[in-house]
């Protein structure tokens, strides 16, 4: 059986800069997989490659048995890969509810005329979408503010709303780009519990970018370390922690 996600010799250059350099690894089904590395190591670029937002320069990538190397973002989303963004990309002037409802696009079929004529199909779809969205918003404790503009939310709430939106895609693989950025240790602990919880409940495979080493160590089954676009270590938290190359990358200059 093949891995959930595999990247093979993946490379992306921007002009002269090699952002991701010949990176290969697999993520197994059901894992929580950590991706760490200093600033500018190419972590977010790697996410962008995997989700198709940035075209691959060379190398290949697969979701289960499907090659996704040349796929468009919406096609990759349709396979069951959802993500959040490092710099939070909510639909700011829409309500929290709309944000989550939009993400169920792939699981609904209503076309222009269904919507305009409000056919039974459209009505039943709308009801389901609404109910499921409210369920998700309740999970992230935002149901009471479902009708507020997303951009009016405090930072931490926006992060959680973005996770709820990603979950609305009903993905198999969830990519979280620094979900704990800007949170205090208490909030990070809560977030870890929350991630563990959705991992169980939604039967997910999760790839996580995080700077906070204790959080990653506690949460992840395996960890990959990137430095200057190169994969320098891959393994269990304890193995990675003691890897001389990793210590060099973090402590050296």
């Amino acid at each position, binding site marked *: 059986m093949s891995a959930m996600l595999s990247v093979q010799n993946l490379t992306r250059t921007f002009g002269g800069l090699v952002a991701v350099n010949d990176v290969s690894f697999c993520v197994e089904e059901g894992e929580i997989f950590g991706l760490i590395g200093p600033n500018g190591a190419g972590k977010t670029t790697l996410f962008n490659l995997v989700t198709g937002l940035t075209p691959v320069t060379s190398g290949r990538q697969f979701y289960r048995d499907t090659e996704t190397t040349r796929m468009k973002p919406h096609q990759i989303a349709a396979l069951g890969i959802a993500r959040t963004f490092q710099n939070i990309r909510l639909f700011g002037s829409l309500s929290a509810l709309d944000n989550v409802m939009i993400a169920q696009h792939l699981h609904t079929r209503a076309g222009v005329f269904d919507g305009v004529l409000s056919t039974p199909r459209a009505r039943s*779809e709308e009801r389901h979408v609404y109910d499921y969205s409210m369920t998700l918003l309740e999970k992230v404790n935002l149901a009471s503010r479902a009708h507020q503009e997303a951009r009016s939310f405090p930072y931490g709430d926006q992060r959680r709303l973005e996770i709820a939106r990603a979950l609305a895609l009903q993905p198999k693989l969830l990519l979280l780009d620094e979900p704990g950025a800007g949170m205090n240790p208490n909030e990070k602990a809560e977030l870890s519990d929350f991630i563990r919880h959705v991992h169980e409940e939604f039967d997910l495979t999760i790839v996580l970018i995080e700077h906070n080493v204790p959080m990653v160590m506690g949460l992840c089954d395996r960890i990959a370390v990137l430095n200057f676009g190169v994969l320098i270590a891959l393994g269990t938290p304890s193995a990675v922690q003691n890897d001389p190359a990793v210590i060099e990358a973090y402590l050296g200059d």
Partner: protein
Amino acid sequence: MEGFITTYGFLMVTMTLQAMLALSLYLPLMAGQLSLASPGFYALGGFVAAVMSKSVFGFTNQQVFPLPLVFVEMAVAAAICAVVAILIGVPALRLRGIYLALATIAFVEVVRVVALNLEITGQAIGIFGVPQPFSRSFDYMALTLPMLLLAIFFVYRLERSRVGRAFSALREDELAAAAMGINPTRYKVLAFVMGAVLAGIVGVVNAHLLNTWNTRQGTFDVAILVLAYVIIGGSRTFLGPVAGGLLLTALPEVLRAAAGIQGLPAPVAQFLQDGRLIIFGVLIAVGTLFFPQGLITPRMFRRWRAAHPQPAAARRKEAQA
């Protein structure tokens, strides 16, 4: 009343048509696409009506044109506009912002020049004596007012549907929308095609109303005027373009009427009469200053809704509790 209808019947019908034209620009804007192609499709629709009514159906200016045939023309114009919109839209909608606006303006100009050169569109002279389904301008209201209401209903419902939400997502953030599984090209082209079809249908009616159609209809000036309807009226809700289209179409005539008020000093009256487009231009510039969100904003509705809780929303709240 009779006198009012005779004087302003044409204006009132034109107001409804212009409001629809504003909606035709608003539709792609719902998906975040600033397209100024509406006048091109509007011109196309007018030529379809003029050519079909005279050459295909063989009616003359003296005959009353049967209303059902107008609907046939609308269907043909809609089909042609949809096909052209797909052909133009698929490549052009990769462009962003002002580049897309310019590319669509290029389309408008090309339609105009092609019509100037074709025998069938009457070249520089255009097509005269387009037969009319109604004898008085005002009677067109029986057609255009339901059309406008239908268009408003369409857009209103669309905004609250799955497709409308996909449009809003694209308008807010195209990349994030794509990452949520929305196919950007597909929905941008869909919004563009809907706008094109609406503009084409408006052209059909207007060709009959004007009794003539030529290349001076549907030019760059129209594109800019329609853009002003949307921006001044408000681009965040469908009521904005409608209000903008109605008000800005009426404004020059209101100024003209104001010039006729008894007791105005002669130079003032003359300025209102001859200089009304100066005032029009200044009002557009001033309007952007005082109504940066447009005359009608979604916030107004939110405030209104907060003050008058709707039964439906209340029920939903109860169900949650």
